[in-house]
């Protein structure tokens, strides 16, 4: 049996992977979001509020968290239609900050004191189960009509539109799905930590989620999986450097990005790793 410590590492790493995937999904359609922490907060607070205040069963609260994340994702997607590239990064950044301040000022959710007394519900199996579902989803997505529309939109919006891709619909779908995944991640997080406060979902969270996915490489969803796994376990491996840990961590990430600006899993590496690789490389 796994020790409590190992379980907690696995659960947090799993949630980080889920969050990185929630960033990857819109990013695969060229929509960079620096506000995934905001969606995570919405999912976490929604689910926690339901289980604490109304005794709602965990699976339903989880679904509700994902749903709220998706709805707000859709709402954020609309203004995002007008913005591109770094403008979008900055606006989603602002969105994340607004969500944080909103919860900071909501007494019903504990305000700055945080929201406590959440019943324990999340187990490794929940996290692993969701990950398996997501991996299946992303594997199916990459070859589907929608997945190809994402890639087309990322590579060249004008060309994609000319080829008949409905960019409005595709972008909104990407944002909504990203919001759902982040909401689910937040709900799982809340029912494991049993206490949440707005600071847990601030800018730091959003930036790290982006860091995980880009570190792993944006060429495939496996990049997000690998990047988040490595970077969320790395602090554990760096225990021996004690309070130099953050500095080591930062230097390692920096060096890695300088050596491989495309991320860990770039198209060339993916081609060598997979049987269908030739096609991935040709597309990437």
């Amino acid at each position: 049996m796994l020790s409590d410590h190992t379980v907690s590492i696995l659960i947090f790493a799993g949630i980080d992977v889920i969050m990185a995937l929630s960033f990857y999904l819109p990013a695969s359609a060229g929509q960079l979001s620096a506000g995934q922490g905001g969606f995570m907060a919405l999912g976490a607070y929604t689910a926690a509020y339901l289980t604490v205040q109304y005794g709602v069963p965990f699976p339903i609260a989880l679904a509700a968290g994902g749903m709220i994340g998706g709805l707000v994702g859709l709402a954020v997607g609309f203004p995002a239609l007008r913005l591109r590239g770094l403008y979008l990064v900055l606006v989603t950044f602002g969105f994340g900050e607004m969500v944080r301040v909103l919860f900071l000022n909501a007494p019903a959710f504990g305000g700055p004191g945080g929201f406590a007394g959440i019943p324990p519900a999340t187990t490794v199996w929940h996290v692993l189960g969701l990950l398996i579902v997501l991996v299946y989803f992303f594997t199916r997505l990459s070859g589907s009509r929608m997945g190809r529309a994402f890639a087309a939109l990322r590579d060249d919006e004008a060309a994609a539109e000319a080829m008949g891709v409905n960019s409005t619909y595709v972008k909104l779908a990407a944002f909504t799905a990203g919001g759902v995944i982040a909401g689910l991640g937040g709900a799982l997080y809340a029912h494991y930590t049993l206490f949440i406060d707005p600071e847990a979902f601030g800018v730091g969270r959003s930036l790290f989620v982006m860091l995980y996915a880009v570190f792993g490489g944006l060429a495939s969803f496996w990049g997000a999986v690998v990047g988040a796994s490595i970077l969320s376990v790395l602090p554990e491996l760096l225990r021996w450097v004690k309070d130099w840990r953050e500095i080591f961590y930062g230097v390692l990430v920096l060096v890695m990005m300088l050596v491989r600006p495309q991320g860990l899993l770039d198209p060339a590496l993916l081609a060598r790793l997979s049987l269908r690789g030739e096609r991935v490389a040709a597309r990437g």
Partner: protein
Amino acid sequence: MFAQQLVNGLMLGGAYALVAIGYTLIFGVLNLLHLAHGEVFMVGAYVGLALALAGFSPWVVLAGAMLGAATLGVLVERVAFRPVRNRGSHVTPLITTIAVGLVLQHVVVKIFGAEPVAFPAPFAAAAMTIGPVTLTTLQLLILGTSLALMALLELVLRATPTGMAIRATAENQTVAGLMGINVSLAIVATFAIASALAGAAGVLLAWNFTGLSPFFGVKVGLKGLAIMLLGGLGNVTGAMLGGLIVGVVEVMSVAYLASSYRDAFAFAVMILILMLRPTGLLGARLQTG
């Protein structure tokens, strides 16, 4: 009361504007976001703190912070931007600068500790009253310094060869290079100027808040980003105007509404403006990053 708050807001806004100008200069020239700029600002303030504790005069503190921050900024360009400038996507520098920011934050934690520290006041405060407004010498110093630095920047950008090289590089890197401008040098100059302004802002805000912490840069950095967007990416005048607006709005919101919302206002104003005018207040007709 209102006039007093207005002056307080302008004072805060002036310092914010200095930070935002840095973001916008770098964005204008490189089309990239510098996410460690808040940390450069923070390190500048700590350099000022070290000098102030050593007993130097306020002007030396200010100049030292600017110099320290400028050196650091040039270093950050060297380490986090130049190696990935023509490789990777425009996301890569976001990640390298996040990493650099993390390192800077924790290096400062190692040296000065993670707790907030008090920042010594530059001199005993004397107050003077003009009509309904009371100004302390410190407030005058902060407001005056930020306005003077902004005027100096305008002058440098408009009338010196370096300034012209920076503007030409911002306009079009390739063509600027063809015209004989040393583009790499212009980029280094941009980082030096942007970081020096951030260092100055660090000291000014530390004077204003009478203290600082290693995580001081995160909040102010975020505000700087919001202000840059507000003014229009790459637009220096826009950043100045945006900074003053955000400073005033923030002080007014604390005075007349709830203080816990103060950090949301910068972003609320930013998102509102982007809905109505996606290119910012004074932005060009261009909205792709």
